[in-house]
């Protein structure tokens, strides 16, 4: 039965998504129980997936029994297992937060599970078209998750998100069609086997495909010049949505993109297009300019959103170095970032919920009012800056090592500089909250934050420390993934 695990995982998420509204309309009290137990089983299943992937190597699965070159292909390798596990863990904690906040929206949960299913699909898809379908599901569900807030700014942001990402989807679909035309396959493995011939026969078409993919996936990942939709959408979305979208969803598009790049294009394409350099430049710009934009923001949520633009830069940078350490750094940063950013977003959510304020300037003296939330926020921020025992440091370490291996000292300086920039926009928030006194007439009327709202935040914050001290464990899995991608 272990053979069917990947399908079971996705199906379980889909079924949960479907039955939640049904159960909600039948018996309202049951909804949180179903949601939380669904999340837990989800974690168990995904850990099982990871275990299977680590124990017995990559598992290929063909629904319907069609062979690889015709049918849908699903892969369960360490990358997929790792991502699925990471996703389900973060997902569960955010679910706890939503249940704690007490959103009485069965559709919200339904969409969350749908998003989860599509994410699992994206990381496990081994044929491009299947990947595309799952990406579209996740696009629509994420837009719905933003628009569900039903405020003017949320709908504005959602619309922007939808339109721009739809353009990206169009580009990707066109690219898939062109790739299919010149290679005759949709399965990544088969395309890879044809790519050498295609490179000789149709180098220009392949360049076009690559351009379409970079634009399409770039929009979805929100890499620097294509990030315009992100700040509006994330800052207006409901807090759990932005936590999930920012911390994981965009990164998983990155995984999908670079899986294609590594399996299909790398290293042959570098004779035709300087892909690595283009991506590196984009990443470096994202890191620097994202941080600069973040410094200028006055709204807490917008600041966090721009910081995600910068952080995506790190991940793209790590992948586009095409070195072992760079890849390690990228994977590690995906994991660490998921914990850091969801901590920050949920903490920001608590802050906004209990004070009704979003401006950084108005948070003076809040630290003593909401000590638990703010401690978690501080830990995550310090991790972002890259203070050693915390997890953010280690991913930066590997990114720097990767840049050195790739002989790119400029990138090293950029990474170090950006940690300083991170400090420049996170530390003022913390310092203001702890050490400034609220201006006269601006004293807080803080609503009580209940434990069920801050416990998820605390767990996430603690995991930032634990992941820092226990880097060994994710690194083991990451090493496997890296050898897989580097083809060694």
């Amino acid at each position, binding site marked *: 039965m272990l053979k*069917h695990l990947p*399908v079971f995982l996705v*199906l379980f998420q*889909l*079924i949960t998504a*479907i*039955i939640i*509204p*049904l159960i909600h*309309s039948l018996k309202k009290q049951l909804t949180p129980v179903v949601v939380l137990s669904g999340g837990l089983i989800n974690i168990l299943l995904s850990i099982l997936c990871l275990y299977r992937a680590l124990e017995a190597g990559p598992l290929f*699965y*063909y*629904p*319907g*029994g069609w062979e690889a070159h015709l049918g849908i292909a699903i892969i369960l390798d360490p990358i997929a297992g790792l991502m699925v596990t990471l996703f389900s863990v973060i997902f569960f904690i955010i679910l706890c937060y939503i249940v704690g906040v007490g959103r009485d929206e069965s559709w919200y949960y339904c969409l969350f599970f749908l998003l989860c299913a599509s994410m699992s699909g994206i990381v496990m898809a081994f044929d491009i078209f299947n990947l595309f379908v799952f990406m579209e599901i996740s696009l629509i569900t994420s837009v719905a998750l933003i628009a569900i807030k039903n405020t003017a700014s949320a709908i504005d942001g959602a619309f922007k998100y939808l339109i721009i990402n739809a353009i990206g989807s169009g580009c990707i679909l066109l690219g898939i069609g062109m790739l299919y035309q010149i290679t005759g396959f949709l399965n990544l493995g088969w395309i890879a086997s044809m790519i050498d011939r295609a490179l000789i026969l149709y180098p220009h078409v392949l360049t076009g495909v690559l351009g379409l993919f970079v634009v399409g996936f770039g929009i979805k990942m929100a890499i620097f010049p294509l990030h315009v939709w992100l700040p509006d959408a994330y800052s207006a979305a409901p807090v759990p949505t932005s936590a999930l979208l920012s911390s994981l969803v965009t990164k998983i598009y990155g995984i999908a993109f670079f899986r294609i790049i590594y399996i299909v294009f790398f290293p042959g394409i570098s004779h035709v297009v300087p892909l690595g350099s283009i991506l590196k430049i984009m990443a470096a710009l994202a890191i620097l300019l994202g941080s600069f934009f973040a410094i200028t923001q006055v709204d807490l949520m917008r600041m966090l959103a721009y910081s995600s633009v910068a952080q995506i830069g790190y991940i793209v940078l790590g992948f586009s170095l095409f070195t072992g350490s760079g890849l390690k750094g990228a994977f590690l940063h995906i994991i660490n970032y998921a914990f850091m950013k969801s901590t920050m977003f949920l903490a920001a959510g608590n802050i906004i919920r209990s004070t009704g304020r979003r401006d950084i300037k108005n948070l003076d003296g809040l630290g003593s009012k909401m000590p638990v939330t703010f401690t978690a926020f501080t830990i995550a921020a310090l991790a972002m800056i890259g203070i050693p025992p915390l997890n953010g440091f280690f991913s930066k370490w590997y990114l720097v090592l990767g840049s050195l291996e790739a002989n790119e000292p400029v990138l090293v300086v950029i990474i170090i500089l950006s940690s300083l920039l991170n400090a420049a926009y996170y530390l003022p928030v913390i310092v203001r909250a702890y050490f400034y006194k609220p201006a006269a007439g601006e004293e807080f009327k803080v609503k009580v934050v209940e434990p069920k709202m801050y416990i998820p935040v605390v767990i996430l914050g603690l995991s930032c420390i634990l992941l820092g001290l226990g880097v060994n464990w994710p690194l083991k899995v990451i090493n496997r993934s890296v050898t897989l991608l580097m083809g060694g």
Partner: protein
Amino acid sequence: MKNLIIKKITSILLPFMLMYGFYVLLHGHTSPGGGFAGGAILGTSLVFFTIVFGHRAGERFKPRLVLMFMVSTGALTYIVLGLSGIVSGGNFLSNDNLPFNLGLLLETAIGLVVASVLFSLFLELTREE
């Protein structure tokens, strides 16, 4: 719409539209067509009906709840049918060892989902606040 001619023609056409929809749906596995096309025709005919006879008529049977159940049942049926492939020893959705024609049943489930989704989307979008 108050135009008598349109109403009459619609009431004549509607059964044929539904029939054609079912035809496309049920023959999807052996000829062009299938669950999505058939479901779309079915859903469109319902939309057509609602446009002509008004929202009241369309929403007569508490359609939101019913439609939600139909969507859910369709999707669940699809999943259960797919799982039957695993039960019979093959892969998910595999048709090899099954005593019945999986394709037809799957198309039916898809048609159900598509038709009800289409109709419910129309109802939601045109709902007067």
